């Protein structure tokens, strides 16, 4: 009897701590009109700039719908202008030279609709150095080589940054999004030295190509909204989900960004 009671109590306890579960939500989702999605940037680097256009789909569809019949024009406040060339698969390219300090205007004409966005390319970031440090396995981090960035933009008052890393020529993603974001607010007195650490470790022998990217506030706000969507719980505890704030007018999704990039490479020995 005692043994039986003991096993009953033990199984009840085990069942209790497995009390939560996760499964697919069985709710009919509404079908909205497909929206245009704009992705892409213009930067101060020499490679061609790419704008990617696609359409949103319903939940049943698996593949993306690319848009190849739009007309895209980028013009800069300095007077330069370029109509982008469609390369198929929703990609449009431009060889216009990106100059920091310029405000760029994006115009998209598609199916009689006009979409427009503005973004200002900031001055390129100045970086003191990159370094690699090894950390062994601990409670809050995995074992490996961690990338750190030191003293970013010592003269700046405010800045919005993103770090993208190519590990052995493969774009590295953190939670599915390439890279990692941070802001700098020099109005806080203690912000003289900045040391940021990339959240995921790398292995010995990896070649890392690092882009330190600076963007304007509106673009940064867009990414904030994107992260908010990733952690949204449907409105029970967090806020009600909303689309990230875009700088594109005309009811489109996505964002247009004019960014300046500093490229550096480092090999983990």
């Amino acid at each position: 009897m005692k043994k039986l009671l003991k096993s009953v109590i033990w199984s009840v306890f085990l069942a209790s701590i497995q009390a939560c579960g996760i499964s697919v939500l069985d709710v009919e989702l509404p079908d909205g009109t497909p929206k245009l999605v704009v992705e892409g940037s213009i930067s101060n680097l020499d490679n061609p700039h790419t704008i990617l256009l696609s359409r949103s789909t319903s939940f049943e569809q698996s593949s993306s719908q690319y848009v190849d019949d739009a007309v895209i024009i980028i013009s800069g406040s300095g007077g330069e202008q370029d109509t982008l060339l469609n390369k198929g698969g929703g990609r449009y390219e431009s060889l216009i030279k990106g100059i920091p300090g310029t405000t760029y205007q994006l115009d998209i004409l598609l199916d009689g609709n006009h979409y427009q966005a503005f973004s200002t390319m900031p001055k390129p970031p100045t970086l003191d150095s990159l370094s690699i440090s090894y950390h062994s396995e601990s409670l809050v981090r995995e074992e490996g080589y961690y990338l750190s960035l030191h003293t970013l933009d010592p003269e700046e008052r405010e800045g919005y940054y993103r770090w993208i890393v190519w590990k052995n020529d493969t774009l590295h993603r953190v939670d599915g999004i390439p890279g990692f974001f941070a802001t700098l607010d020099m109005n806080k007195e203690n912000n003289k030295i900045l040391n940021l650490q990339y959240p995921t470790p790398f292995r010995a022998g990896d070649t890392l190509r690092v882009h330190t990217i600076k963007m304007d506030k509106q673009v940064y706000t867009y990414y904030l909204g994107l992260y908010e969507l990733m952690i949204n719980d449907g409105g029970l505890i967090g806020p009600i989900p909303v689309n990230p704030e875009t700088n594109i007018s005309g009811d489109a999704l996505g964002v247009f960004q004019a960014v300046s990039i500093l490229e550096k490479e480092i090999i983990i020995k």
Partner: protein
Amino acid sequence: MGKKLALICVALLLFLKAFPQTTLHEECTVNKKITVVEDLLNHIQEQTGVSFSYNSQLIDPYKKITLQAGTYTIEKVLHHIFDRQGIEFILKGEQIILVPATFSTTPVSLEGIIKDSSSLLPLTGVIVSFPEIRQTVVTNNEGHFSVLLRPGPQSIRFSLLGYETSERNILITSDTSLTVSLNVKDYKLEEVLVQDHLQRNPVRDLKTGNERLNIKHVESMPAMFGEADILKSLQMLPGIQSAGEGLSGLLVRGGSADQTLVMLNNATIYSPAHFLGFFSVFNPDAIEDVEIYKGGVPARWGGRLSSIINNNMKTGNSEKFSMQGGIGLISSRLSVEGPLLKNKASFLLSGRRTYFDLLMKAVPDNQVQATTLYFYDLNGAVYYQPDKKNKFSLYSYSGDDVARFYDFIKVKWGNRIISGEWLHSFNSRLLLSSSFHYSQYQYGFQINLEDEVDYEWSSKLKEHTLRLDLDYNLNNKNQLNFGYNASRRVFYPVYYRLEENNTSFGNIMLDEKNVLEHALYIQNEHQITKRLSFLYGLRYSFFHNMGPGRVFKYTEGLEKRIETISDTVYFSTNEIYNTYHGAEPRITGNYSLTDNSAFKFSYNRMQQFTQVASTATASLPQDRWIPSDIYLKPQTGDQWSMGYFRNLPQNSIDFSAELYYKVMQNQIDFKDGITLVGNVTDQNADVHLNNALETQLLSGKAWSYGTELMVRKNKGSFTGWISYTYSRTRRQIKGINNGKVYSPRYDRPHDLSIVGSYKFNKRLEVAGNWVYTSGSAVTLPEGKYTFEGKQFPYYNPEFRNNHRLPDYHRLDLSLTLHNRKNDERRWKSNWTFSLYNTYMRKNPLFIQFIEVINNDPNIDENEVDQIYTKDLKGVKIYFSLIPAISYNFRF
């Protein structure tokens, strides 16, 4: 001749026995043997069957009388004998009562204490009724009642569910004091009662929208993890909903969780829940009962729009020691109570602790073992009654939630309460209650990871309250209640510090905020006619913002943003810089249609000067309470309600139907897209770090209406209730949802609760709850898109909360086995087994739209061999079946 007359007398008497009103005209013979009063009265009694009642201090039975032999009517005899003595007689059925002639109609008071005959503890809510004059009063928390009556004979009935009804016939000539003991009802199968959930006659009670839930009922309902929970039991009553599965926040008649004032013996508890809201802070062993006002709120209460909930602690046994407790799967509790001074002073000490973490040490995983997760509650009370006119009480509560992961992450939040009360009865008509209350709520969060991260966040809220309440029995048709209360609150600065890799990311102290809220009130409970009574009153509230503090000024005509701050004004300590005030009328009417049915209606206006700035529907430990100020006007609410109440005879079944309509002004909500936490920091948008919340908040109005129906069976081996509410809640705030009307998440039109319990015999009882509600209103995406290689959902900004989750329903069952081998033994115990969500319905608690691998949300991208599909899908997180066992005892 005498004999014949006597025979006729007897015949007449037998014939006339059916017509007691002619008793006085009955005739009797008097003979010479009667020389004293006593003889005469006995003689009349023998002859006619009429009995006499009198106070022997008033009437001397041996007083000599002279009476001529003969036949007289009783009336004549009595007049002859007693008129000279200044004595009158009153007829009551077959009884004649002799009273002094100076018997005026000045009311005298009858007061008393009613106790449980075995434990000798005072009984609350006993219905003391006077059937002849159709008056009823109810005993208060000290088991005390008091009423004004005209002198004369009275029959009094004392009834309370779970106890044998007691009746007394007494003669009231002057101020009288009684002590009555009621016996607990025996467990006979036909009349067994499992719960005492309503200790009043719902028909007679003046207030609408008022419930009193006794702890015995709460304890007999099956509960999550086997933990009886007062706040969750209240969710089974009509008009009261929960924020979501298992969460304790109460949403009453369309109001948000912060619109309910939760108190412990009149002291405010700001965070009444543990474990993110899954358990309330009230240890059922320490609580006697819970009063809840959903509408028709008396003038003595205010400060929140939607409801007032007051948990009353047990008063402790002043006669003998007793102990009770329980051991469960995730928590244990122990209470001790007893006398400090026999019959004059008593104490109560109650503690409860969960030990999720101790059990987790059995799980073979280092990380799980290193986690500390527990909460505790400690309640204490001391009572001292030096004499009949004075009672002193001291209450305290302390409780914390602690979560620790090794030594690196520490989270702690909790409440502290201290209350003191002095009840003073000036005379039988005037009662003064003076009390002070101290309430503190704090929340802290710390992360220390060697040199890497050093993060600290803490916040505190302190409240000091003084209450003076007077009850004045003006006459037996008017009961006045008036008083004053004042609360001083300090919202302590949020302290936030973050250092990562020796780089500081911020060191913020938010502004301290000081406020004073006080009110005067008066109300009268007026019995206008036998059928019609009114409760009318007025509460007038004042609110002041005081220094030390600062206020930002914004450029005229521009939207309030950090960028448009034009000036900052500073205020010194105790300098008042803003005042709000307003009247809150309260009216309730009750019209008795019959002895067992009544129609009631009420109107009340409430003001609220403190609220939670949060996006959450549930109450959370990190809720940020904020006071009204220059930019944030106080919330006001007007509620109209009416209802029909009916009791079937012997209180076996009662039925109620209520309708309400409520309008609320100055309701706040956040501008769309507020970011709380992310991979990035944006301090301006973060609720918790913002000194200028007015830049993030918008305000508008809300309204709700509904119908609440309830049928309750109170007697028999099967007892329980069915409650059904149909209600709608809507909001409209400029700037949100494009200014269009929208539903908050908890707008659930249908809410059905079926609660029942069945007692098979002395040892075995089974109980169950079945709840069914419409799904919560949610915002669902209209489609998905790919951005930078990852899939995201997209939403239509005009369709806020336009869709519903699937309907929610759940069955809970419990089985209790009493160990009652020997009824006489003091040690009583039982085993309770319960199942939460018996048929394992996967009701969604959280929903997310994330990329799902191979159609199974449990698969981790990094740990799977082959990825076949990776699609954006909606997923739900739910509670499955939760079984529990506990062992409970009472000594």
